[in-house]
């Protein structure tokens, strides 16, 4: 590769620094009236096949990223994020009660549900708008999607454990009781036998759940 002459370098730098495409005349004026067509042709040849190209569009010249590399300019990055506690609850309610309106979700949860929570589930593709309920106010109703079933490995919504199964698994115990069971348990171990008994008690939940899991 031979070193570019000064005019070529000057044209190269001028076009590089320019804030918009420049006509041949503008480049020439900028460089004190030099004849720049030869330099432009040389630059086009030099940048041929590189990641950057010198192109003429409507009589104006500018550098641009090589067209086959355009995908580099716009990248998509995926971020794995865990569903928040509130969103998980809402998703569960939709799954168990669908189709369900927002007011119904709130009634079941016993707390107001932020608009964003449902949006997250819509964005995740697990919940869809399933129309409107024909009651006063015609509220939007929500239901789960096939992606929801696929994500959780369910054949159908009927694979979700029923209330009885949840109870057997200890998942219907009020939170405080469940906590108490967990925190009380380690106390008795003073007596050897007690401990074993406590363990058995506790393990019931997970065992029952494991069975559910297989079903799912």
């Amino acid at each position: 590769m031979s070193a570019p002459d000064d005019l070529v370098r000057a044209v190269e730098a001028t076009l590089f620094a320019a804030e918009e495409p420049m006509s041949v005349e503008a480049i020439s004026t900028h460089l004190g009236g030099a004849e720049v067509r030869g330099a432009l042709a040389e630059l086009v040849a030099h940048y041929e096949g590189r990641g950057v190209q010198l192109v003429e569009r409507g009589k104006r010249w500018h550098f641009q990223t090589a067209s086959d590399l355009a995908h580099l300019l716009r990248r998509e990055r995926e971020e794995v994020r865990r569903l928040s506690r509130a969103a998980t609850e809402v998703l569960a309610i939709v799954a168990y009660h669908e189709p369900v309106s927002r007011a119904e979700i709130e009634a079941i949860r016993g707390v107001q549900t932020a608009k964003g929570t449902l949006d997250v589930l819509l964005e995740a593709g697990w919940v869809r708008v399933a129309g409107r309920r024909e009651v006063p106010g015609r509220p939007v109703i929500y239901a789960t999607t096939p992606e929801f079933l696929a994500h959780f490995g369910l054949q159908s919504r009927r694979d979700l454990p029923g209330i009885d199964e949840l109870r057997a698994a200890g998942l219907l115990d009020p939170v405080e009781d469940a906590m108490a069971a967990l925190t009380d348990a380690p106390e008795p171990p003073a007596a050897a036998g007690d401990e074993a008994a406590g363990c058995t008690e506790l393990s019931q939940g997970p065992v029952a759940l494991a069975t559910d899991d297989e079903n799912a």
Partner: protein
Amino acid sequence: MSDQAEQSVAPFAEDGWDGPGSAANDDKALYLELDGWEGPLDLLLDLARRQKVDLRKISILALVDQYLTYIDRAGALKLELAADYLVMAAWLAYLKSALLLPREEQEDPSPEELALRLQLRLQRLGAMREAAARLMGRDRLGRDVFRRGAPEGLRVDRRNRWQCEWFDLVQAYGQVKARTAPVVHMVRDRMVMTLDSALARVSSMLGVTLDWMELRDFLPPHADPRLKRSALASSFVAALELARLGKAELAQDHTFGPLRLRGIR
């Protein structure tokens, strides 16, 4: 120190007050520059530079004289002098007198040390001033060299992939149900003595003796404390019932005193 001072006074005398440049003859033009100095150290550095020697060879004594002259003349021109210029003038006047005094009478820190310190400070300020000038003289981005004028820009679109486990889903539902389920109060099983058994027990015990007995004595001994409370209540009601039926009489000497019971034949 004194000879060093004298030695340097000489070149200063030659340079004289012409140092400040061609415009020096016009006192006003020169002294109005006072605003142009950033404090006394800046002025001192400028005066030192006008000695046209290395800062290391600068005569502090000559410098002091120049500074004091400068301040005097600025004062004569009725220019406002900032306090720090005057403080510096006073300190330099002190330094000068100390430098001229015989060595034995000098205190600690010695005037040479003070002079050296001033010289070191001037060197450091001078070094930074030169460094700043050289920095500003470099090829600067946006003035001498340029980045691409119209970059396409890189855009990264962020997409969330939400993650949730089956267990979390089911557990969440369980907790919603548990949290909002109607509250049912279950009374724990308790050991109680029914009214019927109390009636049977009290009436059979009343049949054994005609003496007064305290109600407490009718209670089953060695009972669980919770059973005792139930037994006491039931036995009391049984006693009232027996009294109503005319099978027993009740007596209490004073309020909250022991309740006594006796069978009537």
